[in-house]
């Protein structure tokens, strides 16, 4: 049903609800511009939602892109300031796998070089509130991490910040909306409308309602990430980039309390790290020229990751891998360079030369630098509009809930909910956790713990459905990790769907369709990793959802 919605004019139309799109929308809105954000799926559905979940300074890029490391480290500090509830420290160990120290000149050089390298990184640590590195003897190393394979000779430590990258993205969009931006998820920009060599409007289609609309725009910002090549082809513009596919694996629990830097079979650096309630193994990096909507992790990517992690932590072979997940990162285009050596810098393309004045494309960048990238992009937008606006304040104004981190213990006692659950709610909502739990004060049944894996309370599902731009049930994957944990949604998907349906006015058919959709996404992530006890979990999931649910 093609029902035209009203045509409106905006200063800026942002295409793409990843962290850059949401960040630009927030910055533009805070500077007083009128903003429309269009996202064809949900916020954080692409690379932003499939990042490693770190706002690291990028020690890897220190020698090649020192500026990238500095900017990332500085901005990581700002993110810590505007969303303190959403970050957590991950101490990394960089073990030495070489022979007895001092036995060979080469080994001594390796030790020395690593220490200098990490020591140089220490110079950036104050920017992001990180701790300086330490050197651990073999004895100290095995004391802090007994699961490491025997025969290691020590380590240096490296302090980084973990973050829930999906919520970071969501919070930026919510903040943009608070400052007046219109955020439309599940709404795809279909066509750029041009007049006299200028892009003047964007046509869009709402995938949920089937509505079509047109928004007139002073400037259009293309932040569609891995979808840019497709978007460019459809609209006759070039967006040069080297898209790369990155795959991660999740374990059903924290496999240790330290991140471990290990070396993959091809010599690449990778990691096994504790992250929220699970551990993550990452990351692959391969050129990808396919359809970003049609991705799967392959058997060799899964093996590659497990092999790399098991080279230092053999017990990961016995761990239960709950899912594989992936994204397409955009890196700057360069010919004849290995994927890992591509710059993590970013670039803004102005398409005026292609008969599309008023259109900017953003390519590259890092999660940790999203705010600075957004600021730079917003400066360009402002220059193109030629308007006087407020100064950028995205580095000092907290994201929603970021003004204070309440004590989970106090909240748990005051509202009568389990402390572990309160801690998760504080982590996700910061000071707004109080508002979330107030729902449970007014309606005691909202204290029902919907998911014990992720600590999701019924009240939180209701809060998110009311306030966090939820249009589809699967959006809760990115708001509160619904059905992402070891349970796969076994006993929480249905109750959560029921609560969301009540809040959002879904009838039974819609509820079942949403549940089916949520479970289908999970199935695609579990398919490549079905092994060991995860197969028993899968048997139960199928018995309940397919067998009993008829979904």
């Amino acid at each position, binding site marked *: 049903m093609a029902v035209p919605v009203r045509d409106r004019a905006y200063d800026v139309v942002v295409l793409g609800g990843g962290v850059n799109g949401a960040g630009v929308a927030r910055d533009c809105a805070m500077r007083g511009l009128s903003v429309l954000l269009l996202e064809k799926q949900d916020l954080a559905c692409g690379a932003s939602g499939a990042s490693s979940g770190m706002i690291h300074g990028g020690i890897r890029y220190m020698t090649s892109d020192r500026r990238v490391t500095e900017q990332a480290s500085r901005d990581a500090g700002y993110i810590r300031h505007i969303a303190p509830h959403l970050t957590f420290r991950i101490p990394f160990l960089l073990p030495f796998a070489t022979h007895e120290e001092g036995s060979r000149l080469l080994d001594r050089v390796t030790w020395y070089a690593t220490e200098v390298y990490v020591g140089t990184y220490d110079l950036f640590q104050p920017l992001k509130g990180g701790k300086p590195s330490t050197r651990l003897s073999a004895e100290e190393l095995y004391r802090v991490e007994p699961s490491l394979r025997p025969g290691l000779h020590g380590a240096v430590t490296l302090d980084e910040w973990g973050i829930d990258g999906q919520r970071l993205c969501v919070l930026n969009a919510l903040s943009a909306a608070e400052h007046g931006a219109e955020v439309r998820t599940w709404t795809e920009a279909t066509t750029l409308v041009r007049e006299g060599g200028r892009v003047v409007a964007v046509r869009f289609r709402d995938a949920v309602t089937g509505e079509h609309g047109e928004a007139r725009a002073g400037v259009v910002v293309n932040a569609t990430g891995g979808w840019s090549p497709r978007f460019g082809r459809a609209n006759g513009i070039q967006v040069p980039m080297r898209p790369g596919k990155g795959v991660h694996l999740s374990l059903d629990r924290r496999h240790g309390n330290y991140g471990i830097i290990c070396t993959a079979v091809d010599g690449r650096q990778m990691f096994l790290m504790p992250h929220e309630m699970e551990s993550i193994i990452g990351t692959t990096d391969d050129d990808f020229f396919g359809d970003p909507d049609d991705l*799967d*992790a*392959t*058997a060799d990517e*899964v093996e590659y990751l497990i092999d790399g992690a098991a080279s230092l932590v053999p017990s990961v072979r016995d761990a239960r891998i709950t899912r594989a997940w992936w994204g397409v990162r955009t890196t700057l285009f360069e010919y004849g360079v290995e994927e890992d050596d591509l710059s993590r810098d970013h670039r803004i393309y102005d398409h005026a030369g292609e008969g599309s004045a008023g259109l900017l494309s953003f390519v590259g960048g890092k999660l940790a630098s999203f705010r600075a990238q957004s600021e730079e992009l917003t400066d360009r937008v402002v220059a193109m509009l030629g308007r006087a606006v407020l100064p950028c304040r995205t580095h000092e104004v907290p994201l929603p809930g970021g003004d204070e981190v309440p004590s989970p213990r106090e909240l748990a006692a005051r509202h009568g909910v389990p402390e572990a659950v309160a801690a998760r709610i504080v982590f996700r909502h910061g000071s707004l956790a109080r508002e979330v739990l107030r729902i449970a004060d007014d309606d*005691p*049944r*909202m*204290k*029902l*713990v*919907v998911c014990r894996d992720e600590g999701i309370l*019924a009240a939180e599902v209701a809060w998110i459905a009311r306030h966090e731009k939820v249009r589809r049930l699967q959006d809760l994957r990115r708001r509160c990790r619904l059905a992402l944990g070891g349970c796969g949604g*076994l*006993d929480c998907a*249905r*109750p959560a769907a*029921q*609560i969301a*349906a*009540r809040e959002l006015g879904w*009838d*039974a*058919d819609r*509820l*079942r369709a949403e*549940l089916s959709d949520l*479970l*289908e996404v999970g*199935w*695609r992530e579990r*398919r*490549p*990793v*079905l*092994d*060991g006890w995860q*197969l*028993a979990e*899968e*048997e*139960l999931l*199928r*018995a*309940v*959802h*397919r*067998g*009993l*649910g*008829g*979904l």
Partner: protein
Amino acid sequence: MPGLRIECDVLVVGGGMAGATAALAAREGGARVVLASKAPGSTGLSGGAVSVAQDPACMPDTPFAARSGVVESARRIAATRPGHPYRLLRDRLDRLWNAIEFATGQLSAVLAPPTGRNRWILTPFGHAHPAATCHRTMAAGDLAEVRGTLLVCGFEGHLGWDPGLVASGAERVRSLGGPASRHVLLDMFRWEDGALGRPFDLARMLEAPGAAEEAGRVLRRVLARGDAAAVLPPVLGIDPEGRVADRIAAEAGIPVAEFLSDLPSVPGLRLHRAVEARLAAAGVEVLRGEVRAGAGPDLPATVGGREVVARSWVLASGRFVGGGIERRGELREGILGLPVLASEGPFADPSIRFATRPPASLTLRDSRAPQPLLAAGLRVDDALHPLDAEGRVLHPRVFAAGAVVGGHDPASDGTGMGVAMFTGWLAGRSAAGRDA
């Protein structure tokens, strides 16, 4: 430790529906039977339905009354699904009904007698599920039998079940001969520990003296003219002797039933307990623990520290939940180390070896499709002897039953309990030297 050694006719490995049926069928013929059970498995997690077969050929709009019976449906599955156990046993499908009647009769404390056609029972997901039979506490909710309005109940103040969603399952099959329905919230568990109670908590609350009667009075107050039966969430007591459903019904003056359960499952635990009680009453010796060092008939195996020597073995160890089949980089059977050679779809062809293939290549992208990986198990001959990699019978007195036998994906074809009862019954009789 010769004093601890048990010599018996039949060792059954696995205490779920397949193992219990095998043990009871062997015991019926007078055999001395030992059953090894390490933990409740799929049967203990089941939702209350005994799913045997639904007609694969009928259209979604075929009325209940025009659908083929359970045995006829199994025959059609046998005709259309190459790897399915019913196909393998197609020449003996005339005994399927004997097996279902035997197993449900043995467990009649919990299971309602089967009628020969499928009952249609609501699920918490708003779906009507066909099953050859179900728990006694569920029979009054059979959508093909309710004459009048079906009252679907949830609990006021409890978010675990949404009666509107449950009732939508009845609306969806109304044109097939199902009843009209309406839904209400019963004001029963509003107080805080009730509102937050998990299914087992609620089941225990209802078993307390007077609680079922109080529930019946609450239900009576919301009844309207034309209501023919009421269905409630599946928490109407763990112990069948508690007769919670009957007591609510007596007080309310209307037939009362549970709908099916997802997890955690009160009906699953109820069935598990009934199985254990029946095994004990029938004189089956149950040993707790894993089977170790078992090499097969006439050789000693260790079960929970006891040494057992059996003339025949029935392997009823389940699939992935039960632990009978496992995958650690490669699919295998864990107790006798048998190869995993049977599955469904393209992998029903016994010449295709798939045990070492990566998981993604044994699954289909559409989760609704039958999944070969989830259908993987032992290949058996038509006497239920497991076969080795060369297609030879492993041992003339080793039999396999239930989900450890490959070729069916119970979640998508709805034959899990039927295969368990049929293969269990056949294997138990064969193992006891009885004519199967």
